[in-house]
């Protein structure tokens, strides 16, 4: 147990055993995937048409938003180049589905249907449609186990979107609560502030919404205020998540270290 906890020597064994266990996962999931399949196949034409219309309009709306986003992203990259800061290029994502399986009720973990065969590796961030979901902790060739951001042993570096205040959001073990650690009593943080990932830990990409502050209780008798937040991601409802590869990570670091030396060279190019 200690070997697994501290040194990860047994990861190979775990992953080999997971493959043996896979049929169990598969069978438990079977009624649910069969239900989904039936639902997909026995849907009426009218419903499909209605859905198609809805998706079409949504798609148009999102595309319109995307246009603005792309121009903003280009502008952002240009400005970052001017500042010689590391640049963030689009992340690569892969959609994965959750297995309908209850793991241990005291830790918040889920099993997803993508593994090292799909280039998933340990410590990879997961997102759902609304925000940061969790990260992968064990990877096997065909599936991986992910820890949600609300797991008691999980913490994610965040930033208050409004003020830029950095903090760490730790899981509490309850699905709708995160604790913000070490926020001074006089910090500028209010109920309703959106917390985005700050990217400082190197695991989660920058700028994805994580949670919304729900409670701020300054306690003058204690060094830090009690701040609680509610995760944005629908941790107990999502069936599909996105696995994210952060683009150009090593490249970023190279730029960051080289930045001083090349500052003069880059500026003239940009002005053209």
């Amino acid at each position, binding site marked *: 147990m200690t070997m697994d906890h501290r040194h990860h020597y047994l990861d190979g064994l775990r992953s080999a*055993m997971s493959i043996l266990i896979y049929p169990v996962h598969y069978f438990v999931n079977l009624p649910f995937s069969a239900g989904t399949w039936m639902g997909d196949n026995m849907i009426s034409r009218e419903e499909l048409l209605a859905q198609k219309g809805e998706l079409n309009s949504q798609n148009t709306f999102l595309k319109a938003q995307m246009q603005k986003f792309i121009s903003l992203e280009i502008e952002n990259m240009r400005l970052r180049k001017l500042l010689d800061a590391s640049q963030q290029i689009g992340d690569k994502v892969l959609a994965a589905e959750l297995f309908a399986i209850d793991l241990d009720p005291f830790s918040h973990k889920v099993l997803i249907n993508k593994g090292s065969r799909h280039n998933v590796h340990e410590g990879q961030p997961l997102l759902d449609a609304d925000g940061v979901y969790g990260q992968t902790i064990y990877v096997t060739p065909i599936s991986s186990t992910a820890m949600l951001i609300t797991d008691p042993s999980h913490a994610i570096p965040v930033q208050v979107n409004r003020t830029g205040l950095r903090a760490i959001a730790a899981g509490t073990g309850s699905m709708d609560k995160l604790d913000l650690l070490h926020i001074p009593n006089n910090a500028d943080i209010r109920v309703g502030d959106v917390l985005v990932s700050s990217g400082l830990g190197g695991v989660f990409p920058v700028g994805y919404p994580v949670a919304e502050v729900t409670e701020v209780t300054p306690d003058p008798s204690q060094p830090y205020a009690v701040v609680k937040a509610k995760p944005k991601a629908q941790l107990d409802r999502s069936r599909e998540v996105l696995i994210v590869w952060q683009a150009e990570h090593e490249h970023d670091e190279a730029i960051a270290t080289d930045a001083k030396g090349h500052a003069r060279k880059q500026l003239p190019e940009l002005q053209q």
Partner: protein
Amino acid sequence: MSEAKRQGTSVIILTFLFALLLSVIPLPSWLVFVRPEWVPLVLIYWCLALPTRVNVGVGWSVGLVVDVLEGNLLGQHALAYAVIAFVTVKLHKQIRVYPLWQQALSILVLIALCQLLLAWVRGIIGQAPDSWAYWVSSFISAILWPWVFLLLRDIRRKFRVS
């Protein structure tokens, strides 16, 4: 004889597989803590019925499988199941002659022991269970014991597992 033995092995494996399925099948969140500990129930039954075939080693391996299945620290269930298998094999002659309700009481103690060991391991790695609901499942398991026992005994007799 060897034929019968081999057949018996597959039945034992199947009952364990079924228990594993039951132990990860999704339940509504308010029912999660009421889920009986299926795998230890089956393990204890086989330890009582066939202590020479199912004992500490089987408990250990089944525990490892459960750890992988639930994505826990590798070895925590293995330790707990090995301990309850050991205790059951030690006491199997006494427990066998008890009436069913008294057996259920011993099962309560055994499964509570298993949960206590698991809670200790979790406590050491900083994930101690924080609600009393954690202990409910050992009571549920004890209440279910008579049915599990009768069912598995019938299965054992039908397939002549020995």
